[in-house]
């Protein structure tokens, strides 16, 4: 694989993680507001919001390395009438701009709470549209390994799985920061952190469950369709990529499944915050590696119909 292909993997994983993190953070903020009021909820999530925007920016920067002719990059949005790639780039730019505007409003407390909430909702919907447009890019009639149910399911699972575990890590890191700066508020924040982490752990276990069911069905589907190209893609999961394919499943299972259960246990009992932090970091790292491997396989096992 060359830099160009790694650029695609980096972009697609980072962009999906950003969207997922934004959506999950929205839910977290909503729940935290109801539990402890808006000020504490903001303290929990504002710095995390900025981290999401930086992640998205890095992803979009990586996407440029995928191009052979970067100088012409502005023309990439012109064919939105028929090209999902154009649509994706446009929607991605809109998501980034809205994300930056919302983060700035939230950080500096600009505008009313209601107006910020409207912007947040619009950003969330555009984010979902971004992931949807990414799935449509690959739904080409000439690419049987991509043109099926697994592409939208796995893209959205990656979005939410990486998004929720990234939020877990970000909240743990944020808690350490808040605790150091302002020990007074640590108790409420600690309570909130444990509450949110429990739900993140539940989400991770459920999502990895979906993933571990869908991927074998997907491979079986490729074999069952019988087309030469689909069969060639399925065979590549065994040779030469059996190790990557196996590791991808095992790491996702350990990261989101096993660590997820421990994460839930640590988050249930007060006083285990340190271990909970380690679990959150471990789960995120393992799942990130697993998802990057999964995306690598997505591109590496692609075989088109005809004479490609």
């Amino acid at each position: 694989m060359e830099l160009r292909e790694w650029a695609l993997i980096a972009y697609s994983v980072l962009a999906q993680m950003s969207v997922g993190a934004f959506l999950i953070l929205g839910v977290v903020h909503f729940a935290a507001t109801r539990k402890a009021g808006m000020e504490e909820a903001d303290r929990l999530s504002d710095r995390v919001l900025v981290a999401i925007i930086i992640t998205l920016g890095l992803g979009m920067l990586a996407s440029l390395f995928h191009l052979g002719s970067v100088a012409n990059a502005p023309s990439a949005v012109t064919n939105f009438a028929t090209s999902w790639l154009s649509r994706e780039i446009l929607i991605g730019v809109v998501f980034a701009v809205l994300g930056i505007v919302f983060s700035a409003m939230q950080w500096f407390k600009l505008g009313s709470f209601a107006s910020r909430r409207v912007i947040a909702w619009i950003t969330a919907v555009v984010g979902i549209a971004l992931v949807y447009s990414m799935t449509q890019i690959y739904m080409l009639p000439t690419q049987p390994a991509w043109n099926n149910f697994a592409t939208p399911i796995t893209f959205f699972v990656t979005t939410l799985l990486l998004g929720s575990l990234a939020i877990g890590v970000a909240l743990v890191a944020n808690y350490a920061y808040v605790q150091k700066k302002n020990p007074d508020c640590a108790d409420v924040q600690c309570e909130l952190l444990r509450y949110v982490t429990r739900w993140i752990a539940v989400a991770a276990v459920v999502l990895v469950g979906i993933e571990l069911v869908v991927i074998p069905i997907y491979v079986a589907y490729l074999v069952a369709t019988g087309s030469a190209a689909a069969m060639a893609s399925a065979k590549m999961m065994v040779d030469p990529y059996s190790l990557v394919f196996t590791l991808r499943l095992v790491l996702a299972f350990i990261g989101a499944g096993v660590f997820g259960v421990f994460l839930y246990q640590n988050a249930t009992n007060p006083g285990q915050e340190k271990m909970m932090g380690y679990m959150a970091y471990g789960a995120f790292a393992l799942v990130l590696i697993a998802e990057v491997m999964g995306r690598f396989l997505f591109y590496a096992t692609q075989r088109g119909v005809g004479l490609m």
Partner: protein
Amino acid sequence: MSNQLAFYFDASACSGCKACMAACKDRSDLPVGVNWRKVFQYGGGGWVPDPLDPRYTLPNNIYSYAVSVACMHCENPLCADVCPASAITKQADGTVLINTDLCIGCRYCEWACPYGAPQFNEGTGQMTKCDFCVDLQAQGLNPACVDACVMRALEVGDLDELRQEHGSIDAIEPLPLANITKPALVVKPHRHSSPSGQGAGRINDPFAEEV
């Protein structure tokens, strides 16, 4: 007249000599790895034990034929639909061309085309493909591949006229099914060729890209 330029390929005449490939490469000065026209050797069959003496084997339905493939300048060019930069467009005469002022080199068209027509030029960082030798055709000349063919297996002409003359077959193995992009192609099948999707053979020279 259909206002659609098209290639005619006679699989029954093609000897697989690849003169068309060489002429194309020379005319457009293509680098190694980029071949706007490719010749695929497709074949099948095998050996069975001799019923009289199983120590020996007999050839069983062994066949091989060549298919010369370039951009099909499709009536429904998926490459142009998916190109984000509007760099691939269908011209009034039906030819499908890449505008290098717009191409961003994302290689998305490569994933869309089932004929392997758009190919990446590592040197320029952009996509390239058969341009139907529009410059030669403007002078009333044939594309380089057509004139290079010693077996007269290639022709260029209006799609409707070619169909009237040679029939309307546009998909034999190993070409993809024609319903995906509606290629501007008329094929005279080889006596051993099956329609696309029904062949039991395989491409036997898959390393043609390394030329």
